[in-house]
């Protein structure tokens, strides 16, 4: 049986703007296996949200997607709009960053969750309603039968995010995309939501694409890690390798630059410079202007993602010299 549920091949999502072509995602190759959590790390503008939107084909104008996105071997980019609609929310569900704006304020919570269920499953109203209450209970909303009649503004941020998760999981998706799902939450609430996602993953057996810039969250939740920088995949490996023995200067630098609870440091090793713009990214390796190992070759030749050991790929021209 094929274990890979999603495979992204040569994905290019370009935005054709007046200022030029913004290569938000450029030649991305990724794989997500069944029951696996893939952590997608990247800063603002690295293309992580665009990747998620590309998978669901929700990229706004003037964006254009090329490449292949194989979900169970079928290319989502070749599906009709109608077929896509049953994939979205049905097989692949997404939790958005901002629970305040992604719920409709004029419908009750119960209404919004049952809409998702009715669209994808053939059930009568009573069953739908039972499902809604079950889901709300599962995500830990007390007094679910009453609260489902409440409107989004009657919920706190953490509760709203739970509602989003309930909605996303209501059709038992095979892949859950969580785009900065806990970024706006307080740490104690974040802890609860992460715990919830872990439990639900066990229960439903879904795979998760976890998009975040918080390395702590990634370390805790993921099995594998993919690092994006300026639209390019820089490194791909399992979570322990990523944090213990990264083999790309960007991830290495990132890990050294963050203040952490578990390590004492007098001074942080800051990464020089700023995140590049996408319309005119640096020549050669996109990270080279900020890389402490950069040599002349780095601004001339664009590195390819190569497998340096089984299951560990890195896109650095000097990876052999630096890390071996």
């Amino acid at each position, binding site marked *: 049986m094929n274990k890979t549920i999603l495979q992204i091949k040569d994905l290019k999502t370009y935005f054709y703007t007046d200022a030029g072509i913004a290569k938000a995602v450029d030649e991305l190759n990724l794989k997500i296996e069944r029951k696996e959590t893939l952590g997608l790390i990247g*800063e*603002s503008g690295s293309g992580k949200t665009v990747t998620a939107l590309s998978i669901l084909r929700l990229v706004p104008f003037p964006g254009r997607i090329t490449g292949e996105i194989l979900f169970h071997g079928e290319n989502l980019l070749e599906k009709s709009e109608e077929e896509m609609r049953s994939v979205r929310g049905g097989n692949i569900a997404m939790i958005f960053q901002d629970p305040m704006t992604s719920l409709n304020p004029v419908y009750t919570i119960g209404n919004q969750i049952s809409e998702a269920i009715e669209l994808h499953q053939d059930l009568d109203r009573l069953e739908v309603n039972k499902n809604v209450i079950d889901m709300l209970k599962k995500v830990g909303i007390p007094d679910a039968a009453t609260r489902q009649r409440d409107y989004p503004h009657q919920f*706190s*941020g*953490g*509760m709203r995010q739970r509602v989003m998760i309930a909605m996303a999981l209501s059709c038992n998706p095979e892949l859950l995309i969580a785009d900065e799902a806990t970024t706006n939450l*307080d*740490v*104690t*609430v*974040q*802890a*609860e939501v*992460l*715990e919830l996602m872990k439990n639900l993953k066990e229960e439903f057996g879904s795979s998760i694409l976890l998009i975040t*810039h*918080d*390395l*702590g*969250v*990634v*370390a*805790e939740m*993921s099995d594998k890690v993919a690092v994006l920088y300026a639209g390019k995949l820089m490194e791909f490996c399992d*979570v*322990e390798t*990523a*944090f*213990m023995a990264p083999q790309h200067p960007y991830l290495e*630098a*990132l*890990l050294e*630059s*963050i*203040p*952490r*609870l*578990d390590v004492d*440091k007098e*001074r*942080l*090793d*800051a*990464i*020089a410079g*700023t*995140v590049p713009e996408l319309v005119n990214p640096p020549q050669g390796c996109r990270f080279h202007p*900020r890389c402490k190992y950069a040599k002349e070759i780095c601004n001339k030749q664009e590195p390819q993602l190569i497998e340096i050991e089984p299951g560990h790929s890195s896109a650095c021209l000097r990876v052999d010299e630096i890390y071996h």
Partner: protein
Amino acid sequence: MLEVRNLKKYYQLKAGIFKKQVGFVHAVDGISFNVKKGETLGLVGESGCGKTTAGLTILRLIEPTAGEVFFEGKDIFKATKKEMRTFRRELQIIFQDPYSSLNPRMTVYDIVSEPLKVHGLARKKNEKTEKVSQLIKKAGLSPHEHMHRYPHEFSGGQRQRIGIARALATNPKLIIADEPVSSIDVSVRAQILNLLQDLKKEFRLTMLFISHDLSVVKHVCNRVAVMYVGKIVEIAKTKDLYNNPQHPYSEVLLSAIPVPNPKIRRKRILLRGEVPTPVNPPLGCRFHPRCSYAEPACEKVEPKLINIGGPDEHLVACHLRK
């Protein structure tokens, strides 16, 4: 250097067509602490706990409801207009959002020179230009290249540098930094934190560092005060607080932070219930409805902040730590 005594800020809550007053939001409800010369005190807590309100009230950017704030022995809240000008020069603030705290119609030069103008610190034009370019350089920007540009031309990190240059313009003694790095890209955050550290040393600044990010606070601060729903529940040296939190809330807060190390699987304390509203905070200890150690006394009597650390000053407001 800065002493805050029983500071309170209540907002009126009005309802109905006649705007009848129906209650108060107890945003900051009687907090006391002091900041010693040269140290960085962290003020941490979750959203809505009153940490930003506390910062703004100390500077009198919003008027307090009650309490006293002494800066170098002088009461800020009783200051006359003229005295207030001096305070405003010596106390500065760096805001959270570098996008909305810079006027989009002013160039970097205008922004950084404005405090000089207001306080009459540089009267001649060339003196002003000289001072501004010095400040811009100190904040890590290039005067030649950046001085006459507008805020929209800069990235988040660079904007925060402009905000820092502006705060330093009056040569302040104390800076209140309200979440200075929370809206900045991860890879740039370290630059700004290092910059703050360097400038602190160079200008011998004292800092009140308001943040919700406990990893950042651990790195930057000498002492930390933890707030929960308008109250301070614990103040201690950074090391003591992180290694040995005494208040149940601090313990929960610290256990909730995800650590970027997949080998460390920490035991996490999950909280029951929701953060109470500051309109009707729980009686007694405000944390008691969610506290796993709560005893009957916690529901009735409000715990006072007491020192349990001897000379090292570890203050905690909990009935169970006596």
